């Protein structure tokens, strides 16, 4: 009897451990019969190319069996890669750098956005932000702890604006303070809710503009395509095929000639957003992913290094991570 209880506790513990690790058995480095691709967010315009690849056979034509899984606030592609539950994923640059700082064995195989969609919307009537110095005395919305805080603080530091010269306002999902005019600049994703808010404001007779940190030399990288180092080392062909498939799909999805197909596809997965809004979101996305002289998927090493520098300066990471080592060269 005395020995029965510890044995029972041990067995129960083992059972819990085994059930918890159910998803950990398939390690990232092993060749996967089926590949899981974890997106960063729910299906919307930011996943247009991913959906396009899945629906139009870009994966299967390269012999890949890929399951595209939507992301969300509780989903973290990097963790899923490490746990072997996904082989590819989308993560923001700050997530990648934080993970590298903690020893996560991940590599970036493509940079989806060439310009960060995280920007600030403002009422353009009577306001002009030709320089960040014009933010002095303004109320600027930021999500404390979020990327926008890091970007805004970097911008303020770069232009030598003391934090107390700007009124930083904690924002959430509720845009009321912006609509009421209590906040001058509100952080939004330019190609997603930025379009919706601008439309609403236009209907109310108010013109809007977007404050773009990239234009002021604060280039903070956004979403990128990632995989694990072991996956890359053990299955470079699979990684190459996946990346090529996805970038080709994005290329086609962004092509103006295919706009109707892309809009219809995104609308099928994101029925809450009207097709005409998706059309505008598509135009904005195209500009962010394919700027002039840009190439889709290009990894902007300098921008990544600046992103790391910003994070280091703001104490988000404790020591350098040499992010360039985790960026896959174009030649794979």
């Amino acid at each position, binding site marked *: 009897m005395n020995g029965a209880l510890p044995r029972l506790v041990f067995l129960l513990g083992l059972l819990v451990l085994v059930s918890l690790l159910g998803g950990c058995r398939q390690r990232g480095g092993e060749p996967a019969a089926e590949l899981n691709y974890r997106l960063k967010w729910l299906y919307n315009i930011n996943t247009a190319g991913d959906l396009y690849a899945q629906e139009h056979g870009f994966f299967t034509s390269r012999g890949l069996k890929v399951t595209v899984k939507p992301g969300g606030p509780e989903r973290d592609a990097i963790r899923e890669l490490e746990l072997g539950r996904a082989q590819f994923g989308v993560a923001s640059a700050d997530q990648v750098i934080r993970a590298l*700082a903690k020893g*996560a064995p991940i590599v970036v195989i493509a940079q989806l956005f060439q310009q960060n969609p995280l920007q600030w919307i403002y009422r353009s009537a009577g306001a002009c932000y030709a320089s960040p110095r014009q933010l002095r005395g303004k109320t600027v919305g930021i999500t404390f702890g979020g990327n926008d805080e890091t970007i805004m603080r970097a911008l303020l530091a770069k232009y030598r604006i003391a934090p107390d010269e700007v009124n930083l306002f904690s924002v959430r999902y509720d845009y009321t303070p912006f609509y009421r005019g209590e906040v001058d600049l509100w952080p939004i994703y330019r190609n997603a809710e930025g379009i919706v808010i601008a439309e609403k404001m236009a209907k109310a007779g108010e013109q809007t503009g977007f404050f773009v940190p990239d234009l002021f030399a604060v280039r903070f990288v956004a979403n990128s395509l990632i995989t694990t180092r072991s996956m890359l080392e053990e299955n470079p062909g699979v990684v190459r095929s996946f990346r090529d498939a996805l970038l080709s799909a994005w290329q086609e999805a962004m092509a103006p000639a295919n706009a109707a197909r892309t809009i219809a596809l995104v609308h099928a997965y994101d029925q809450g957003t009207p097709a005409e809004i998706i059309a505008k979101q598509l135009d904005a996305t195209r500009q962010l992913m394919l700027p002039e002289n840009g190439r889709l998927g290009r990894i902007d090493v300098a921008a990544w290094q600046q992103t790391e520098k910003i994070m280091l300066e703001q104490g988000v990471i404790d020591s350098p991570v040499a992010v360039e080592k985790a960026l896959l060269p174009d030649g794979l």
Partner: protein
Amino acid sequence: MLHKRLSQFLIIYFLGLGLLLAVKYCFGLSDYVIPGFTDMQNTAQAVAAGYLRAVLDTLGVAVIGHVLAIALATVVAIVGRPDNLLGTMIKTAAYNLQAYPIVAVAPIIFILLGDGLPSRLLIAAIICYFPLLLSFIGILGEPVAGIEHFYVVTGRMRWQLEVKIRAFENIHKLITVVTGSATLAMVGTIVAEFIGADSGIGYSLRIALYQSDIAKVLVALFLIGVFNSLYLVALELLGLAVRKRMGVEQRTQQ
């Protein structure tokens, strides 16, 4: 009592932590997925003071919200106690309203009241209010025939006396329900802070999750657990004092 509560929590917490570390080291996961011991230690040192203030802030709001919920549930249960149309309506409304998930209601509250203290208080109170109300209605609506009969037939029964009799006879249940709902008040406050407030440990948790910093989350969970245990112990001691004062202990000894 304090020792028991705290040791229960610490055992569960460190078992969970041990399990996480076992997973980490068995599968060679990075500190990003599951933080290592040193990482947790460094994080704890870095954020402990700030998180301690945040958790005390949360506890303060939770206690006030809890008291408000108890007061409101008592009043509504007294009003809804009789087996008449009003009582039935109140019971039905309570059962239906508690079905609404707070995450759906909270944004409306934040829009109406802003992201300050009132919203946190209200959400904390709402989360622990309905379980309290349903229990209070059950207890205060159930006659204690063996005691009430005399007062009814001799024309002495007043609503205050009726409530007193039913509350006294069910004091153990009431104390258990109040103590149990304390955790809900704490959870409610944290949820409110997580969703929309700009202070408290729930807000700190949200930032930690934004930053994918599980070490911070674990430190926050530790502090939440410790202070929740302390609050429960305080309530249990209060319950003991109330029972002693009302002479309930003598009955249980009997």
